[in-house]
């Protein structure tokens, strides 16, 4: 239990770093580290596949995309953030922790949850048999993502041919 809380705190800390660090590359890397923590948490929560995906795809692929973008926009990509935002963050953060704690505590005591027996089958069965529609949708979203990127990066010259 303790290790999980430590991991969760690490996740929070690196997320905070990701938004507070001025250097974008460093921020992206903090995000990747946070993903790493999340992946481990998944693993501990008996979701190993999700953990693997989180580490490889989010911490890996997405970070690469971020770094690529940052590199592409490096020339004029500096935007000066307001200092007050950084200074005020801890105050709001602590305030929110308190509120969050109170809310969760109050919810915690009232809510019954339906008891569910242990699951049958394996992960693969669940994914393919119960969530088949998700796979269809995944096809859809990948198609959408690919087409979107194609559309956004289409060559301008071609327009003139038309």
């Amino acid at each position, binding site marked *: 239990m303790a290790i999980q809380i430590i991991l*969760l705190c690490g996740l929070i800390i690196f*997320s*905070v770093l*990701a*938004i507070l660090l001025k250097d*974008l590359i460093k*921020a992206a890397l903090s*995000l990747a580290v946070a*993903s790493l923590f*999340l992946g481990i*948490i*998944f693993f501990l*929560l*008996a*979701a190993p*596949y*999700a953990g693997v*995906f*989180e580490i490889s*795809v*989010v911490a890996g*692929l*997405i970070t690469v*995309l*971020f770094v*690529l*973008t*940052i590199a*592409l*926009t490096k020339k*004029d*990509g500096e*935007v000066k*953030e307001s200092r007050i*935002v950084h200074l005020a*963050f801890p105050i709001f*953060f602590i305030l*929110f922790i308190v509120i969050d704690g109170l809310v*969760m*505590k109050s919810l*915690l005591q009232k809510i019954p*949850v339906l008891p*569910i027996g242990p*699951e049958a089958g*394996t*992960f693969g069965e*669940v*994914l393919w048999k*119960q*969530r088949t529609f*998700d796979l269809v949708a*995944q096809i859809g*979203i*990948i198609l*959408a*993502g690919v087409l*979107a*990127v194609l559309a*956004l*990066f289409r060559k301008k010259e071609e327009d003139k041919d038309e």
Partner: protein
Amino acid sequence: MSNLWFLYLFFSALLIFIGIYCLLTMRNLIKLFIAIEIISKGVSLAIVATGAVNNNVLLAQSLAITYIVIEVCLVATALALIINIYKKNKSLDVRLLSKLKG
């Protein structure tokens, strides 16, 4: 068991707060998108944790994986947009994106 669920939800809420704080206050487009990523981390944490504490981890895991795929597609689209915006505006300042108003 449900105590644990709300512990995870507590952290996931924190992550979402961090993300929204960033969205509300910061100006760099890429930073804003990092904030979105943090929010989605919070959500995926909530999904897996919910499954784990409620004996439903296999289903939750499959949802999480699907969600990660969605995230990737979103990131790709969004970053493509950001690059395009950067090409047009030569800047990543979100405040410049206010030509459409009224």
